[in-house]
């Protein structure tokens, strides 16, 4: 049997509960946008910080004197041989690549844009490696509008050159694929000439963990996966994250990205 004291407490609860509910809802309506904005700013700051770190790694690892002098020597050879068209094209690509490396400040971009910069890089590498290098592209057109982070594909490809093609002799095969699998974007880079255990370790090293950190800032951790598979002297690195369309710069301020 309910006593008067218990009844009083119960009625007080019945009266207080809707008041608390209304206050909670009012608070949410008034401050939801600000909380979202703060969260977004926090994420953007973390992305910015990671981008700086990625740039630092890129500049340290890839725009190194070794690559720079090799490229310049290749250009010099083209000039000496009088292959003017190839030289112009090479210089043009080198200039675009350097420009991209030094002025990229966007925290996200389309996969199309990212692959465009990868092509500049590969065009220079083609001058250096000539017929030794064989590249296969397997990209689906519908995946090109997907949102991605700067240097995602570039890091994988530079790893292939740095830890395999430049170190070991033989024909260099590179397979780049980008597909949509259900709600996920899957990017895969496969290359050969990964000979020593150190090459293997270096290929899946610090660059990949930086990529994983940056992707986890945009998507939840369980939706992002980076896997590597070694088969003899071949290595395949696959990155999977949710498919989302990249918004135009104006929309970017309000809606970072959207899924449709």
């Amino acid at each position, binding site marked *: *049997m*309910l006593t008067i004291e218990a009844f009083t407490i119960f*009625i007080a*609860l*019945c009266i207080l*509960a809707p008041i608390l*509910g209304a206050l909670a*809802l009012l608070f949410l309506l008034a401050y939801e946008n600000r909380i979202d904005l703060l969260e977004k700013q926090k994420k953007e700051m973390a992305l910015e910080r990671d981008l700086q770190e990625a740039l630092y790694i890129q500049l340290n690892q890839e725009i190194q004197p070794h690559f720079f002098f090799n490229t310049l020597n290749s250009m010099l050879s083209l000039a000496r041989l009088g292959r003017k068209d190839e030289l112009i094209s090479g210089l043009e690509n080198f200039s675009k690549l350097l420009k991209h490396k030094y002025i990229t400040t966007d925290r996200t971009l389309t996969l199309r844009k990212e692959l465009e910069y990868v092509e500049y890089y590969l065009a220079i590498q083609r001058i250096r490696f000539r017929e030794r290098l064989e590249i296969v592209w397997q990209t689906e057109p519908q995946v090109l509008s997907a949102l991605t982070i700067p240097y995602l594909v570039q890091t994988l490809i530079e790893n292939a050159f740095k830890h395999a093609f430049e170190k070991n002799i033989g024909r260099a095969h590179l397979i780049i694929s980008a597909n949509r699998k259900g709600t996920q974007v899957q990017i895969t880079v496969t290359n050969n000439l990964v000979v020593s255990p150190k090459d293997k370790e270096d290929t899946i090293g610090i660059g990949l963990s930086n990529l994983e950190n940056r992707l986890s800032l945009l998507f939840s951790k369980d939706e992002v996966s980076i896997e590597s598979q070694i088969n003899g002297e071949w290595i395949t690195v696959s990155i999977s994250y949710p498919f989302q369309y990249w918004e135009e710069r104006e929309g970017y301020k309000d809606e970072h990205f959207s*899924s449709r």
Partner: protein
Amino acid sequence: MNDKWMLYMRGPVSFGLGLAIITLLARWVTGNTILSSPQTLIQYGIAGSIGYAIAGGLAFFFLGLVAKRVRRSFPEAITIGDVLKEKLLPTYHHTFILLLLFMGAYALMVQFYAAGTLFYYVLPQFPLIGFGGFLLLVIYLGGYGGLKKLTTLSFYSVVMIFLTTILLPIYSYLQNGISPIYEGVKLYHPYLFFIGSHETVWFVSAAVIVFTGQILTDSATWMRIFVTKPEKIGLALQSTGLIWATVPMALLALLLFAISGKSFDQVYLLIQTMLQALDASFLMIIFVVFCLIAMLTASSSELHGWTSLLIRNVWLENSLTDKQITRYHHLSVWIPVLVLFVIVAIVLPSSFSLLFFFGNLYASLIPAVMYILITDHRTGPAPTIIVAIGSVIGIVSQISLHSFFSIWASFLTAFLLFIAFYLFNLQKYKKPME
């Protein structure tokens, strides 16, 4: 798809946390919530009423766990039919959609009964005229208004819900004092204060199952989930559960005040007793407006969900012209409303039990819907067959068991059958869905 239908079904904006809670709350504070509260109080006492509120809240918590995953897996879905289309083989997905349409029509009928009951007491001379006007508003808002208009209406509904559940109990208890109300209830209805009945425990456990079944199969709820930002869904549903539970609690406090020191003829007349107990006319007006707007929002949302399921997953899939779809849209709005109007007008509300009607079907639907939503592969007729077996076993068991046990019987039968079905097909489904 035509922009007109897209705008009708999912409106122009995505919901954040606040909007999602408001629209879900307005959808689920229904005529059933208002009218079944008296029934629960009289049959199962204060303990049963508290259990009823907790059961509703738990159902939202449960949905929060599932909805998050579904929203992420099907980012482009608009209705629950879109998910069924992906997860069931073609013929069977239509069968399941038919089942959901049937349950939707039944839920709409319950809303209309609640509204009909209210009009019997608010407008005793012209109940049908009032009820007819109410239905025209439902058609305008739910049938043709679309999600944008319903969201605006939900704002007003939630304001009225809070105004009523805060103002009326405070006024009643401050004016009369808690002690006289307690003595009045103890004198006339001492059985309400009895705690510890086994039947109450069974009632609450059955209520959790039926509420979960109702929410899980509700097209309007899923439509709101699909327009809510994925990262907000879990918290939105859990907060809705918490806030929703406060409404039956406040209504309970109000009911105890209404029946204190007096008796009543029949349970369904309690709403009249409640109106009479609110001696100040402005309080009466607030209560009636609250009932009307809550029923209007819930019924319109229900009709909107029902019509959207038909448009998106039946008409639009049959490569009909826009003109044909528009004609079918008119029919799918007007025909169910008119048929239900006739049923409500003929069958008196007193003869209708609002609690747990079709409870067996809802109980069997939970494992089926969960199986469809959670597993990765496409399924054939199994969910439909298991729902039918579960419901039949539950209904047959009512001959020897109490209705609450029969709800559990339906749930457990369907649940065990799904486990057996899954284990039987485990080898076959090891490969991921193509």
